[in-house]
């Protein structure tokens, strides 16, 4: 679980650096502008994927600690988040 947490933190840090790289690429301009757009999107997607991954880890931890009700609630949170995202992706 600690490894998972460390991986999430690394992903968060990487997203921060990718976003900074996109700012730098946008500042250069020209052909770098398109790369900047791609980097910005990748950075933001990486960033927003960290909290659900942590929630998933939390759900697994509750399950292992025999707290099925809380694990169920964490799973419900994840499902609801997924529904919100998919609803807007489809629309």
């Amino acid at each position, binding site marked *: 679980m600690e490894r998972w947490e460390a991986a999430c933190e690394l992903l*968060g840090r990487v997203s921060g650096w990718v976003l900074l790289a996109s700012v730098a690429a946008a500042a250069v301009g020209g052909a770098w502008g398109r790369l900047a*757009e791609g*980097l910005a999107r990748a950075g*933001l997607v990486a*960033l927003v994927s960290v*909290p659900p991954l942590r929630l998933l880890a939390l759900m697994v931890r509750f399950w292992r600690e025999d707290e099925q009700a809380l694990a169920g*609630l964490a799973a419900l*949170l994840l499902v609801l*988040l997924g529904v*919100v995202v998919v609803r807007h992706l489809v629309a």
Partner: protein
Amino acid sequence: MESGQAVVVLLASVAMGAVGAVSGLGGGTFLVPLLTLGLGWDIRTAAGTSLLCLVATQLGVRRGLRGSALLDERAGVVLGLASLVGAAVGAELAGAVSRRFLYLLFGVVSAGAAGSVLVQPWLGSSFPSQRGEPRGSWRAGLGLLSMAGAGLVSGMLGIGGGAMNVAVMHVLLQLPLPAAAATSSFLNGVKALAGIPAYWARGDVPSLAAAPAVAGAMWGSVLGGRLLARVPARVVRVVFVPLVGWVAVQMFLRGLGG
């Protein structure tokens, strides 16, 4: 966005992220007014960007919390459900209501946040409680309803609503203040994630424009977390209450069309 403005947004977001972490109000209370009043962004674009910043600042806060027992994950999961529903609805509503209403609501919420910083010392001493105290069912019900309301406001305005979260968890649900504050940061991540898709789908979050704000807020919150221990609470009240009060007045005036 011009590269000059991107640098301005980046530096301002570092400052706002740090100020938000030090004041305990979160970055949105400062970032949304900066982007709208200072840089002329649309309030919906500012709110959507601020929600992304909320996730980024939560990562910084989380780094500081690692290994601590402050975060009440059980309360976080239960309250997270109410917050999530509120934030998702709030983000949808933000696209439906007028900009003037959003400015007015921001003014009211900022005034409340300034008030909460003022009364913090009395809150801390008047409600001494321990984790695990029995919580009445009416308190739990009201707490869930309040968290849904706080989520709604967060989703509409792009703020974390830390002041609201902490007040509800501490006063109604009787969580100790440090646990309430730590759990609030967990809830902010959930609320932001529930709200972001609606803003993204409406085109209110231009990736390239948001990138410097989000990166700045992330590094700013890390910086603020380090400064937190060195800034006395009295200084926070003296500096931030007038600042947030000023923000409240300015947003209110913008809402009234002044």
